[in-house]
């Protein structure tokens, strides 16, 4: 399967206000804080020789992965689609019609409004934080939003035979210092954002998690869907950014 798009996000452990609402004794009002609030670094746990535990994407790509203007209370976002270079999802013509319908109906049709789990990669760039659980032989991510979690399984075994999971089935391996996760079996009810960007059951994601600093993970998702997306991959620089 050829990757058709690349989404890249930076997850910073400096923005963990929401998570601290459950983890810290002195954060009675943390639930009301915006996710972008900066917490003291000392409050952040970090595993030796592992990923930081508490992370959040500080952007607002959850509104529209293709970017959106700012408005009161909402910072603008550039497109997080770094390939194709125009930042647009390369929909097939018929699929683009559905995307436009989704957009028009987004105030009622977005599955997250019904508290469905956010799916992959959407869960990663939500306004709410996530926590990485890591121990020898185990890797999982817990997302605050809708208490979704994903257990990452070694890729020595094939994907689970399912097609309708909100958080998909994840198989991973390490490539040097990068965790590479292959995600399949995601339901076609899931959206990529609040703007109605969508996919079919043929959706396939390859995620890459790599630490670029003591408190930062660079997140990259290659997303492919031969049913909905018109173009096979055209990665600007051999599928990495």
């Amino acid at each position, binding site marked *: 399967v050829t990757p058709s798009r690349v989404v890249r996000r930076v997850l910073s452990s400096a923005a963990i206000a929401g998570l601290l609402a459950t983890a810290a004794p002195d954060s009675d009002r943390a639930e009301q804080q915006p996710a972008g609030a900066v917490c003291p670094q000392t409050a952040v746990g970090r595993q030796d020789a592992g990923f930081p535990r508490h992370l959040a994407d500080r952007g607002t790509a959850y509104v529209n992965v293709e970017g959106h203007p700012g408005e009161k209370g909402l910072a603008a976002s550039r497109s997080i689609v770094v390939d194709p270079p125009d930042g647009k999802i390369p929909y097939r013509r018929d699929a683009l019609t559905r995307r436009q319908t989704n957009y028009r109906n987004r105030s009622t049709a977005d599955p997250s409004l019904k508290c469905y789990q956010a799916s992959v990669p959407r869960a990663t760039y939500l306004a709410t934080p996530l926590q990485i*659980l890591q121990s020898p032989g185990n890797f*999982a991510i817990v997302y605050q939003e809708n208490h979704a979690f994903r257990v990452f399984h070694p890729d020595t075994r094939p994907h689970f035979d399912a097609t309708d999971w909100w958080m998909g089935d994840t198989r991973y391996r390490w490539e040097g210092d990068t965790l590479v996760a292959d995600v399949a079996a995601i339901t076609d009810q899931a959206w990529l954002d609040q703007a109605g960007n969508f996919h079919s059951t043929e959706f396939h994601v390859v995620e890459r998690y790599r630490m670029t600093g003591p408190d930062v993970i660079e997140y990259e998702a290659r997303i492919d869907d031969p049913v909905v997306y018109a173009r096979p991959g055209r990665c600007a620089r051999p599928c990495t950014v």
Partner: protein
Amino acid sequence: VPRALEQPAGLYPVQIIQDEKYVALLHEAMHDVRIIPTDNSPHPKNYWAWDGDSRGRWDGDTFVVDVSNFNGRTWLDMAGNFVDENEHVLERFRLLDRDTILYEATVTDPTVFVKPIEMRFTLKRVPQEQQILEYSCLEGERSLQHYTDEDGGKKRRAK
């Protein structure tokens, strides 16, 4: 708590992931997550939740968890045994052998019970090849309509 762990064997498993600062319980049922800090931190103030707030510590080979801050809306079972927001649970997890955890819980609630309740049951390791599956029941979803009358569901309309 402790209802989440009282699942029939093999029906809805739980995965434990622990590091030096947290023990996390990932329940398949309701995709319920309990993240238990083991850093001697106290319970938060003005915070109430379905799962309450858990703080753990190791007492020799026993993992002891103090659970407080419940929202008071939970039942202990399908029979309607209940607690309110004064519920307090002291859990003890101990390995009996490599595949068995003995689970003990002391449940107190001074506004509901006249004395503490002691619970005890074992948790068995599931085969390695099994994995947690996705559980899609959501908050507020009406799972009750699938229950039979004797399990607490509504009486079906006579046809």
